[in-house]
């Protein structure tokens, strides 16, 4: 069967110390044992409770019957003296309605006046105390629950019930409970084995997947059963993590390729300029000019490197430590002030609409840089006398920062690639830039659990950074709860 692990299937073969150690190191076995233990203990407690309550109830009933019986007889004695008592006892003894009834009336001298016991039971000494003693009833040995009442004149009345039947019932009950308990134990062990097998199967899935990934097959994912249980949750969160790792690795691979291709060009340019100068420059001025240009080229390469490092730093998520609740409005108004002058200089109208307040949980520097990139782009691609709309407002649960220009925009076919590193649209080939601006904006937006939308502004580009609004009450409460 499925749950027959190597240890349980063999059963008889001796398990060495090492084997036993390994068995108990298995989390599945531990969980299964805990399960079986809890199940067994609860079943045992249930059985014991059942046992004592049933027997207690029976005992109580018999005692009640004996008590009321002897009370009635005492009342009869008080009413009509010894003769009435004797008649009453006699009636009871001949009446078949109470076959288990035991009565014995003893005179002051110790002689049996009436009763169905052969002799006074040994050990019955005190009045008004419950005894459970062996008795002989018409020559038949039995067990009875007994109580003695003292009567006036030194007589003693013994009233009791034969409880042999009850003892038999007790034996039947005990046997039943023991069977039930054994069955429960067996079920518990089966359940434990089942739990262990489920556990092992799931863990094995996960460890098979992670093992495959460790060996380099990053495309493997943990199978999700679709039941929606905790194991599925675990599997899904592991898969999510793997997706992110895969994305990061893709990014790294892409960057390495891009560096190889896109940095080669400016490096080649700088190198050839220097070599050309070394070989052909005839005047000091020519040499100086070549060196200056090459230095500029190198500066350009350095800035590309810095942008790349910045993006990977952001994508790695390490900047989340600098997150704080801030109002974006003044931050954006500062940027508006910084860029308004540039726009005016280029005879471009910067139309700004920023509503107050714009609470977000963010890294101020990163948001600034992302918006700066969008504004830089918009200014770079705008003709003079056109309008750039710069706005920020709360829409539903998100803060939307929009930069919309009237430039050439991004062709529909390029939109997906526009945010990749080093992507330059055909129409942008002749403008300066590294093709990293939007990649950084996307990285910043994603770090803030947000999105960058690139839409058609008819004509032009409308870039929207959308990040969640920071709700102080809810989040601070959540923090309190976790604290």
């Amino acid at each position, binding site marked *: 069967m499925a749950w027959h692990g190597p240890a349980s299937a063999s059963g008889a073969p001796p398990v060495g110390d090492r084997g036993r150690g390994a068995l108990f190191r298995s989390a599945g076995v531990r969980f299964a044992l805990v399960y079986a233990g809890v199940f067994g203990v609860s079943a045992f407690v249930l059985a014991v409770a059942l046992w004592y309550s049933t027997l207690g109830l029976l005992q109580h009933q018999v005692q009640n019957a004996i008590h009321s019986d002897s009370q009635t007889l005492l009342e009869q004695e008080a009413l009509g003296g010894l003769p009435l008592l004797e008649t009453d006892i006699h009636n009871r003894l001949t009446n078949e309605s109470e076959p288990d009834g035991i009565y014995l009336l003893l005179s002051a001298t110790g002689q049996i006046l009436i009763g169905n016991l052969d002799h006074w039971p040994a050990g019955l000494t005190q009045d008004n105390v419950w005894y459970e003693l062996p008795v002989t009833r018409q020559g038949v040995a039995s067990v009875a629950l007994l109580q003695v009442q003292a009567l006036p004149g030194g007589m003693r009345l013994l009233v009791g019930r034969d409880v042999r039947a009850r003892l038999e019932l007790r034996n039947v009950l005990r046997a039943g409970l023991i069977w039930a308990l054994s069955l429960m134990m067996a079920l518990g062990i089966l359940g434990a084995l089942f739990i262990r097998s489920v556990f092992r199967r799931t863990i094995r899935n996960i460890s098979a997947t992670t093992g495959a990934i460790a060996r380099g097959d990053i495309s493997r994912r943990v199978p999700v059963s679709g039941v929606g249980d905790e194991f599925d949750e675990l599997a899904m969160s592991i898969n999510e993590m793997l997706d992110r790792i895969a994305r990061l690795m893709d990014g790294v691979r892409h960057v390495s390729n891009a560096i190889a291709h896109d940095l080669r060009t400016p490096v080649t340019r700088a190198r050839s300029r220097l070599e050309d100068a070394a070989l052909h420059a005839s005047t000091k001025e020519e040499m100086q000019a070549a060196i200056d240009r090459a230095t500029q080229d*190198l*500066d350009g390469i350095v800035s590309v490197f*810095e942008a790349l*490092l910045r993006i990977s730093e952001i994508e790695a998520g390490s900047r989340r430590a600098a997150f704080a609740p801030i109002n974006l409005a003044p931050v954006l108004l500062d940027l508006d*002030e910084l*860029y308004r*002058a540039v726009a005016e200089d280029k005879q471009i109208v910067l139309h700004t609409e920023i509503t107050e307040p714009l609470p977000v949980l963010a890294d101020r520097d990163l948001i600034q840089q992302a918006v*700066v990139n969008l504004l830089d782009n918009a200014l770079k691609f705008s003709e003079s006398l056109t309008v750039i709309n710069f706005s920020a407002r709360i829409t539903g649960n998100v803060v939307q920062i929009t930069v919309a220009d009237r430039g050439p925009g991004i062709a529909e076919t390029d939109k997906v690639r526009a945010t990749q590193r080093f992507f330059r649209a055909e129409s942008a080939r002749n403008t300066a830039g590294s093709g990293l601006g939007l990649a950084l904006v996307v990285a910043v937006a994603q770090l803030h659990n947000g999105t960058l939308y690139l839409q058609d502004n008819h004509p032009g580009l409308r870039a929207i950074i959308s990040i969640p609004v920071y709700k102080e009450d809810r989040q601070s409460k959540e923090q309190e709860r976790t604290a």
Partner: protein
Amino acid sequence: MRILVVEDDRDVAGFVLKGLREAGHTVEHADNGRDGLFLAASENFDAIILDRMLPGGIDGLRLLETLRGQDNATPVLFLSALGQVDDRVKGLKAGGDDYLTKPFAFAELLARVEALTRRGKSDGPATRLQVGDLEMDLLSRSVRRGTQKIDLQPREFRLLEYLMRHAGQVVTRTMLLEGVWDYHFDPQTNVIDVHVSRLRQKVDKPFETSLLHTVRNAGYMLRAEDA
């Protein structure tokens, strides 16, 4: 000025030393952390240019922490290839006064070192700044040149204040972006040039002599004609 350069890369160190000497400074050099700490602790310098990753068991951060632990307040500029935001924050937290990432332009390094030493000297509560006939009252936030009052926007005022505090020194675009706007990144567009040229319109244009000069390949300098 007397400047200590702690830098293990021989080429970079040679380049920096030569440049600083040409700019008229006296320079000492250490190529490992231990010698650097010994020099820094035993002699007086106006500024220290400090690499972060150094041989000799004591790296730049340790060196600076030890120095600050001895109540030595010599201005320190970190010059490091560790350029992430966290690295920068770490450097400034350890007691660094400025942080420049490699590779760097020498003009930027020189401007920042000179700005550092100036900052060390004139931290007094100045209420008035003066460069040539340009005067700034920091209390009433008013600016006048000669007899004429100049109206400035708040940001223009801060830009001019920064330039005046560093009068006679080269101030780079990044320094302005950091010092006036508190931005720590490089915009691709010439935002700083635009703002400086606007300031120039107000401060220089209506007058005969100009105070705000552009320094080629470096930045700007505010200086009186005769200075």
